[in-house]
C-alpha cells in the first residue's frame, strides 16, 4: 500500500469515526434523521474502504444494502413511528431521554 493510499485510508477512518459518533448521537444536534444519515454515511465510507482494500464485490454490497436500502428502511420506520406517535402525543424527539 503506497503512502497516498495509507493517507486516504486514515482520512476515511477518521471520517467514519466522526460519522459513527454522530450516528449514535454523541456528536451533532442529536436529531434522529441526522443520526440515520450518519449511519448511512458510515456504510458509504466503509464501501470506499473495501474498494481500497481491493474487494469490489463487498464494496458493492455495502453500498447498495448498507448505505442505500437500510438507510431508507430506517426512514420508512421513522415516518411510521412518528405518524403513530402523533395520535397519542406531540412528538418531541428528546422526550425519551
Amino acid at each position, binding site marked *: 500500500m503506497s503512502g497516498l493510499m495509507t493517507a486516504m485510508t486514515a482520512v476515511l477512518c477518521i471520517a467514519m469515526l466522526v460519522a459513527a459518533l454522530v450516528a449514535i448521537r454523541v456528536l451533532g444536534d442529536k436529531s434522529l434523521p441526522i443520526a440515520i444519515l450518519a449511519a448511512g454515511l458510515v456504510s458509504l465510507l466503509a464501501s470506499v474502504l473495501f474498494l481500497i482494500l481491493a474487494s*469490489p*464485490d463487498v*464494496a*458493492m*454490497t455495502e453500498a*447498495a*444494502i448498507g448505505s*442505500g*436500502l437500510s438507510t*431508507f*428502511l430506517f426512514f*420508512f*420506520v421513522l415516518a*411510521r413511528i412518528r*405518524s*403513530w406517535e402523533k395520535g397519542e402525543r406531540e412528538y418531541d424527539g428528546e422526550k425519551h*431521554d
Partner: protein
Amino acid sequence: MTGKNMIKRLLALLLLASIGAMFASLLLAYVPDTDLNFTARYYAEHTAADIGAANIVTAIIVTYRGLDTLGEVTVLFLASGIVGLVLSFGRKQNTTLRNLVPVGELLTTASQYLAPIIMLLGVYVFVNGHLTPGGGFQGGAIIASGMLLLLLSDPLKRFSHTLIATVESFSGVGYIALGLVGLVLAGGFLDSRILPNGVLGELISAGAIPLIYSLIGLKVGAEFSSMLTSLSETEDL
C-alpha cells in the same frame, strides 16, 4: 439527566471501549500475508480452468460454495416472507386517510428517468457476475433500490404483489432445478458445469453461472421489493 441515565451511558461507553480494545488487539497483531494460503491458492489456480469464470469470487459463491449461497438465499426468503406476514396484518385498503407530505418536483422527474437506468444497471451487474465484480445479490439490491426510488416519488403507487411473488417463485424453483440438473449431468448439486465452459471472459461462458446468478438476482430483487412494498403499504401496526 438523571443518575439512572448516567449509569446507562457509562455502561454503553464501557462496552464500546472494550469492543474497541478487542479490535485494536486484532489490528496490532495483523501481519499481511506474503502469499496466498492453501485454499486461496487452489481457487486462484484452478478456477479459470475448471469453472471458466473470470471473477473468482463468483466461482466460489456460485459453484464451489453453492450450497452456502442456497442457504443465504433461503435466509433472505424467510426474512422477506416473515416481514410480509407481519406487515400484512396492518395493511388496509383505504389509503386516502393518510396525509402525505407532497413529493418534490425534483424527485418526481428524476425518478422517472433514473429508475429504468438503475434497474438496467442491476440487470447488468447480475448478468455479468462471472466477469466483473458483483453478482446476484448486488444486482438484486440495485434493482430494489430502483423500486425504492419509485416508491419514494409516489408513496401511493401500488406494485403487483402477484407479479413480484411469481418472479420470486419461478427464479427460486429454477435455481433449485438447475442445481438438481447438476446432480445428474455434472459433478454434484449446483455444479455449474452442466453447460460448456466456453471462452474465458466472454458473456456466455462459465457454464451455468450466468443463468444461476441471473435467477439469484431476480429472486433477491423480488424479495427486497416485496419487503419495501409491504412496508410502504402498511398503515399502522
